[in-house]
C-alpha cells in the first residue's frame, strides 16, 4: 500500500510534466488545427536560449526573461507567420509534416550550435525533498505540478472570465462566424501561439533541471505529451492536464505491476481503447462532423 502511494505521487509528478506540455498541443489544435510534432523540441529550445544568455554573462533572472521573450518571438510569432499561416488552408497533414521537419531542424541546430552533451540547468525551485504523507517528494516535481495546476486555472479563467477569452473561444469554435461578428480572429489566433510559446518556455524552465538541457530531450517528452493530449481529449485544456497525469500514473503502475519491458505499451493500449470507445477523449467534446 505504501508502495502504491509512492508510485502514485511519483507518477503525478512526471504526469504534471507531460500535462504542461500537452496543454500547448490542445491550444494550437483548437484555434488553428495545428498538430505540432515539434512541441517537445519547443520545450527543449527555451532552456538553451536561457543558457546562451547566461554564457553571454547575463544573470540568471535576466536570462530567464530574455529566454521567454526570445521563445515567444521564435516559437510564437515566427512559427505562426512563417510556417502555420502559409500552410493552414491546405489541411492538417502537410502542416503536421512540416512540424516534423521543424523538429529535426531544431534538434540539429541545437546540437550543431550548442552541444550534443547534456548540460545541467539551474533550478528556480530549490532542489531538495520534502516529506508529504511520510514520503520524500522532490520540490522540483511539486513546482511542476503547481505550475500545471496554475496553468489550467489561469487559462480557464482567461478563457471564461475575460472578454479576450470569450473572443478566443468564439474563434476556436467557428472562425467564420467570429469574423463576421467583428472578432479580430487573426489576432486571437496569434495570441494562442504566443500563449503556447510562453507556456513551453515556462515548462522548459521547470522541466530542464530534471530532464537536463539536451538536444534530444524533446523526443520522449513530445511523444508522451502528445499521447496525453489525445487521451485527455484533443480539444480541452483540462483534458490535457487529466491525460498527462493519467499517463504518468499509468506508466508507473504498468512498470510496477505489468512488465518493465512493456511499460510503454500500456498507455498505447489505453489510447486505442479510449479512441475506440470515446473518440473525443476523456474530457473532450465531440467534434462536429459534417456530412
Amino acid at each position, binding site marked *: 500500500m505504501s508502495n502504491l502511494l509512492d508510485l502514485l505521487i511519483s507518477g503525478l509528478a512526471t504526469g504534471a510534466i507531460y500535462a504542461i506540455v500537452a496543454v500547448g498541443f490542445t491550444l494550437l489544435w483548437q484555434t488553428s488545427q495545428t498538430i505540432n510534432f515539434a512541441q517537445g523540441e519547443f520545450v527543449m529550445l527555451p532552456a538553451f536560449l536561457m543558457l546562451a544568455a547566461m554564457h553571454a554573462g547575463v544573470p540568471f533572472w535576466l536570462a530567464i526573461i530574455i529566454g521567454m521573450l526570445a521563445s515567444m518571438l521564435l516559437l510564437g510569432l515566427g512559427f505562426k507567420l512563417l510556417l502555420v499561416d502559409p500552410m493552414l488552408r491546405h489541411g492538417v497533414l502537410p502542416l503536421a509534416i512540416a512540424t516534423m521537419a521543424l523538429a529535426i531542424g531544431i534538434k540539429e541546430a541545437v546540437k550543431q550550435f550548442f552541444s550534443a552533451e547534456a548540460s545541467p540547468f539551474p533550478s528556480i525551485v530549490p532542489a531538495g525533498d520534502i516529506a508529504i504523507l511520510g514520503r520524500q517528494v522532490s520540490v522540483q516535481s511539486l513546482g511542476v505540478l503547481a505550475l500545471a495546476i496554475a496553468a489550467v486555472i489561469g487559462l480557464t479563467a482567461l478563457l471564461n472570465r475575460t472578454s479576450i477569452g470569450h473572443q478566443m473561444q468564439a474563434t476556436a469554435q467557428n472562425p467564420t462566424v467570429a469574423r463576421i461578428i467583428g472578432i479580430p480572429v487573426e489576432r486571437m489566433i496569434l495570441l494562442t501561439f504566443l500563449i503556447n510559446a510562453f507556456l513551453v518556455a515556462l515548462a522548459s524552465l521547470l522541466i530542464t533541471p530534471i530532464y537536463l538541457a539536451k538536444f534530444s530531450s524533446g523526443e520522449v517528452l513530445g511523444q508522451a505529451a502528445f499521447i496525453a493530449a489525445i487521451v485527455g481529449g484533443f480539444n480541452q485544456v483540462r483534458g490535457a492536464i487529466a491525460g498527462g497525469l493519467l499517463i504518468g500514473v499509468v506508466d508507473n503502475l504498468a512498470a510496477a505491476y505489468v512488465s518493465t519491458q512493456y*511499460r510503454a505499451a500500456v498507455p498505447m493500449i489505453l489510447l486505442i481503447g479510449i479512441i475506440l470507445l470515446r473518440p473525443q477523449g476523456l474530457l473532450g467534446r465531440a467534434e462536429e462532423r459534417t456530412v
Partner: protein
Amino acid sequence: MLLATVVAGPAFAQGAPIKLANVAELSGGGATVGTNWKNGIDLAIEEINAKGGVLGRKLEVTHADSQSNPGVARAQVQKALDGEPYVLLGPGYSGSVKVTAPLAAEAGIAQIMGGEAAELTQAGNKFLFRTSFGQQSSMPKVAKYINDEVKAKSVAIVWVNNDFGRGGRDVITREFGKYGIKVAADLSTEAGQADFAADVSKIKAAAPDAVFVYLNEEESARILKELKRQAVTVPLVGETTLIGQKVVELAGDAANGARGHVGLTTDAPVDLIKAFREKFSKKYNYVPDHNGLKGYLAIYMIKATTEKMGKVDSKAFADNLHGLTIKAASEPGILMDVTFDANGDIDRQGFLVEIVDGKQVIKKVLPKLN
C-alpha cells in the same frame, strides 16, 4: 550524377596526407556518443599534425553520420570504403558495427570501433579492433568485485534496454551464475526515462544485497536520486556510466557510495589522462566522457602501428596491430600501456572506484593481465 564519387588516384604517394574515414553516430539516439568520439579523433589528429604527422605525412579524416541507424551506417561505411581509406574508424553502436564489419573485412581495411558488445570480436574477424574493454572482459571484473568485495549473494540488475545495456546485462547474468549469485530482480528501463519510482520500488520489494546499475549517465543520475529518496541503502555497483564525474555532477549527494569498475575514465589518476582532459575541455568547452577518450586513442593506435611498420600500408595494418603492445612511455598519446590480442580485444589497467563525498576515490588498481 551526384552519386558518383571520385575514386582517389595513387592513394599513398609520399608526402600526401594519410586518409582516414570515420563513420559515427552524429545524430539520432547515439549523437552524444558519436560526437565525443568524433571530437576525440579531431583533437588527436590536430596534435599529431602539429608535430609533423605520421612518418612525415599529415593525417586527414572525413566524418560521416550514421544517424544511429544500421542501414545508414552500412551505406556510409560503403561510401568510406569506396574512397579507400587507410583505416576505418567507428561506428560506436554495436549493431552498426555488426552490419559494417564484414564490409571492411572484405575490403581488407582495418576498422577501429567503439562498440562494446561481447560478440563483436568473437566472430573471427581479423580486421576489427576495440578501443575499450568489451563487455566480456569488463563484466567478469564487476562480478568478481561483487562476489569478493561486496560479498553479495543476491543482486538486482537495472539495465537500459538498448544493445549496450542488454549486452552488459546478459554477460553479467552469466557471470553471476558462475559465482552462485542470485538475480533478485531483472529490470529493463527505457533510454530517456525520467521516472524510476516503479523500478526502485521493485528493487525494494526484492530486497537484494546489492544493485547493479547499467544505464546511460543521465538515467544513472536519475535512478540514484530515486534510490536515495526511497531509502535504498544496499551497495550500488556499476561501470563507467554509474560512477563517472558527469553522473556525480548530475546526481549530487545521491551518488555517494556508488562504486564499481571503470575501464577507461577521464577521471583516472593518471597524469596523461588528466592532461588529455584539460586539452579536450579547453578545445570543446565540456568535459569528455569515455567515448572522447576512445576516439582519441584510436588515432594514436594508428600512429603507433604505422610507426612500428615504418610505412603506410593499409593491407599490413591489421596484422601489425594484432599482438602489439603500445607503451605510454614511448607514445604518450596512448595514455596508458595497452596490448591488443589476436581478436582485436584490448588489455589495459582498470580501476575499482567508489564515490566518496562527491569525489571519485580509486580503491584499487586492477593490473594489466600481461
